[in-house]
């Protein structure tokens, strides 16, 4: 069966303004259009050679599939070309600066990839007998040691699959600890306005009531308002440090002490740990639980949206409630503590969060990166990340409104607002024009406490020359937006696509390919 009888029909050449001729294919030299696999593949094409099956009676219980599935295949050369052409429609950190505040896009060393692909790590089954996977357990144990030491905490749960999954892990440990104390009635989690959007979603998901805590004018949590709200119904707070305004929460230790005195726990969103690693231990600030995005701080690749990895470090108070499984060192080697082997040390564990042991492939990458940098290098990482961000802030504060320019040094990210742009111009116009300059835009409209927020995080792997080019581009674009340059409204002009209609996509969702083009062509 061929899925699309008509094949892919290129659109007819269309004259465009500017004098450049339209092309028959839609391609423009190295800017290549690419059809969907459903338009170019067929169900009887395959790119693999599979040996014939030996003769055997079928034992499929009468459920043999008869209807077609509708999966197109491509030969190997067609497959390689399809995905190569698609890859060229992507911006990536390998191509240039990616100043996404709070997302932390830094260089991804290829040594990490090479080590993760050693068959001794990549070709090992999660349920293999523990005697046959001692090296894998040792990787987890070594990485855990680094995480606990760098954060000054007591233990670490390695299994959470991503930062938001780690948040859930921390919140569930808090819930379990409260229940153990017979204080399950504490239902309120306080979340500052500047918190990551996942924080309140996580707390609500775990059955808590979320109450916002306002920010002060200088971009930090209003610690007086927070302390005033503490009481016997408060389970804890979720606070991001450094926060999403790019600032260090000076009062965190003071807040932690007050929360503890009131019987609550402190969850710290550690998404921005890369700004302080090696210089500050969150444990010294009274934090009870904090997730660490391995992909951000320890440079495992984002892969177009994952996989992430979100180990959670715990204080002594929350350690007994941490999830399983756990890797422990014994006299004979390493053992895996699962439900079946849980002893009194883990009897209060809130359970299992995921089928196996977490993101092993991310652990090998993160450990490789950590060993490469070492304790001295990681400290330098934080210093250079903070230096780069402050350099961007001070280089642009006279061009763009910088709401917290007088609130102290920014940490790893600098924040600007759309104040002062010409009427009708906003952050999105600057972002889209930056695309034409060859840069990925900064984080837009986040955090919510800053109007038209632009959150810029250069990271430590950018050179001064790269920063100077970016600063120049952003300054130029900002000046155009202040002058009301109408061409900004239709940017980007040089990307594979012009501005995309997101409203139409949401109003009439088309989420899978249906033979629309084929039908139109008939």
């Amino acid at each position: 069966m061929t899925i699309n009888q008509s094949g892919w029909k290129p659109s007819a050449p269309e004259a465009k303004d500017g004098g450049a001729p339209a092309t028959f294919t839609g391609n423009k030299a190295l800017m290549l259009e690419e059809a969907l696999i459903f338009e170019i593949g067929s169900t009887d094409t395959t790119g693999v050679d599979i040996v014939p099956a030996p003769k055997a009676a079928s034992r499929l219980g009468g459920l043999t599939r008869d209807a077609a599935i509708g999966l197109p295949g491509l030969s190997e050369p067609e497959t390689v070309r399809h995905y190569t052409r698609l890859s060229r429609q992507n911006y990536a950190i390998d191509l240039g600066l990616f100043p996404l505040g709070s997302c932390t896009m830094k260089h991804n060393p290829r040594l990490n990839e090479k080590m993760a692909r050693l068959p001794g790590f990549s070709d090992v089954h999660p349920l293999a007998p523990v005697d046959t996977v001692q090296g894998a357990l040792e990787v987890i144990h070594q990485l855990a040691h680094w995480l606990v030491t760098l954060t000054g905490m007591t233990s670490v749960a390695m299994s959470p699959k991503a930062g938001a999954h780690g948040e859930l892990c921390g919140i569930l440990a808090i819930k379990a600890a409260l229940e153990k104390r017979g204080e399950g009635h504490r239902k309120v989690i306080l979340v500052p306005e500047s918190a990551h959007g996942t924080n309140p979603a996580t707390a609500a998901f775990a059955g808590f009531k979320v109450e916002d805590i306002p920010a002060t004018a200088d971009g930090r949590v209003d610690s007086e308002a927070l302390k005033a709200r503490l009481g016997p119904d408060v389970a804890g707070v979720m606070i991001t440090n450094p926060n999403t305004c790019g600032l260090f929460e000076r009062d965190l230790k003071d807040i932690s002490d007050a929360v503890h005195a009131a019987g609550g726990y402190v969850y710290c969103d550690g998404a921005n740990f890369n700004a302080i690693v090696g210089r500050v231990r969150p444990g010294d600030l009274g934090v009870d639980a904090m997730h660490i995005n391995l992909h951000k701080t320890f440079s495992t690749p984002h892969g177009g949206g994952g996989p992430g990895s979100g180990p959670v470090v715990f204080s002594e108070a929350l350690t007994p409630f941490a999830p399983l499984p756990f890797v422990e060192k014994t006299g004979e080697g390493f053992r895996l503590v699962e439900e079946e082997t849980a002893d009194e040390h883990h009897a209060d564990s809130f359970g299992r969060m995921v089928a196996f042991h977490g993101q092993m492939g991310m652990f090998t990458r993160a450990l490789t990166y950590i060993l490469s940098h070492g304790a001295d290098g990681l400290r330098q990482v934080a210093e250079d990340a903070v230096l780069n961000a402050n350099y961007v802030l001070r280089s642009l504060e006279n061009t763009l409104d910088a709401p917290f320019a007088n609130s102290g040094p920014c940490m790893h990210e600098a924040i600007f607002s759309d104040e002062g742009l010409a009427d009708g111009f906003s952050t999105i116009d600057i972002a889209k024009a930056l695309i034409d300059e060859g840069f990925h835009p900064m984080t837009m409209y986040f955090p919510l406490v800053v109007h038209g927020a632009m959150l810029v995080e250069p990271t430590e792997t950018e050179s001064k020359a790269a920063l100077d080019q970016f600063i120049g581009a952003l300054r130029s674009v900002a000046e155009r937006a202040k002058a009301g340059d109408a061409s900004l409204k239709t940017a980007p002009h040089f990307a594979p696509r012009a501005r995309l209609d997101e409203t139409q996509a949401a109003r009439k969702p088309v989420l899978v390919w249906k033979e629309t083009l084929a039908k139109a062509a008939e």
Partner: protein
Amino acid sequence: MRYLPLTDTDRGAMLSVIGASSVDDLFVDVPEAARLSGPIAGLPNHASELAVERHMTALARKNTVAGEVPFFLGCGAYRHHVPASVDHMIQRGEFLTAYTPYQPEIAQGTLQMLFEFQTQVARLLGTDVANASMYDGSTACWEAIGMARRITKRGKAILSSGLHPHYVSVAKTMAKYTGDALETSAPTLTAETDIDALIAAIDGDTSCVVVQYPDILGRIADLTPLADACHANKALLIAVVTEPVALGAIRSPGEMDADIVVGEGQSLGVGLQFGGPYVGLFGCKDKYVRQMPGRLCGETVDADGKRGFVLTLSTREQHIRREKATSNICTNSGLCALAFSIHMTLLGEKGLRDLAGLNHALAVHAAERLAQVPGVSLVNDAFFNEFTVTLPVEARPVVRTLAERGVLAGVSLGRLYPGEDALANGLVIAVTETTTAEDIETLATALQEVLA
């Protein structure tokens, strides 16, 4: 510190632009008591690429590599051959080092791939739509239970005894905090699945029935009567597929009218990786799409009228609705979804069906051969590439002994269900295209010797 491009000259020049005398000035907001004066004690300093390679390689060597021994482990993670071009393509920097496609004009590569992935997954599972991936199968299963609660406004989920026990554990963990009631039980070592018991358990409080297909013992059964019973009671049928290759040989859950089908996509393109990262598959009927968690990619047009793709329906997501969000899920498993999609594209329908046929034929051969070992009985009547045998003794120590002899024999039910004495003699054996006839013979011979 080869990853840091700034020189001390750069640093000095930048500090003077900032107006700071030293980098310490940039950390003034850290309370003095929490400021560290030098590198954290007790940890080594930076190392060369060669030194790190040596260290990691030494650790890797301490593991038994699945591909180097006769290997029969499954139970939610399967060893298949991944074509070389899959791993090559996902290492292209434009895929590997891209971020979530929040700027669609310069992320069409990732977005088109996700749209293709969604379509492939929906077709494979037999659902109308699918999302752009979840963390893994177990968390996708939990999210499906939460979704059924939102749709039915009921809070009791009935979990089949054939559902992977780790998936059950994950659901139990989450249910403790959301208040869902879960009905669960351990499987029995029979050829029959628990479909009839599940049908009998459905009542007016039931939000959903969760059934694995093929199940933890490798059994497969027609889900149609269960779907009918669910729908007659306004409950949803959730089917969990941990071995997607099976759907190249047997009918999809969607075809049998399951409302939500979730799965573990690790089998295609991703590899074993000691348990992660994997890729969760999630499909459902059209009418439930706005309750579906996770990211979705949708087709649209750009300002020039050209087809393009964007992330869509994000009003369900945490960054818009905060505490009212459908789920707190933030990242997905994009790169693993890419690997899955490339592998599926290489296979195509023909390749997937051939691959499934080969898996099944080798598994039938292995089942017949192992059943000839004195004391070993085959539990299953029907199976795809994984089946259960019972031994005359506890399986767990047998597996350990076989591992010492260089054979990774399968997953003992004693490991998966430590408290269940009735299951202790059960051994689940998986066979794929990577298993050779010699491997099967080696296992049968070794098993016979150990049991003698």
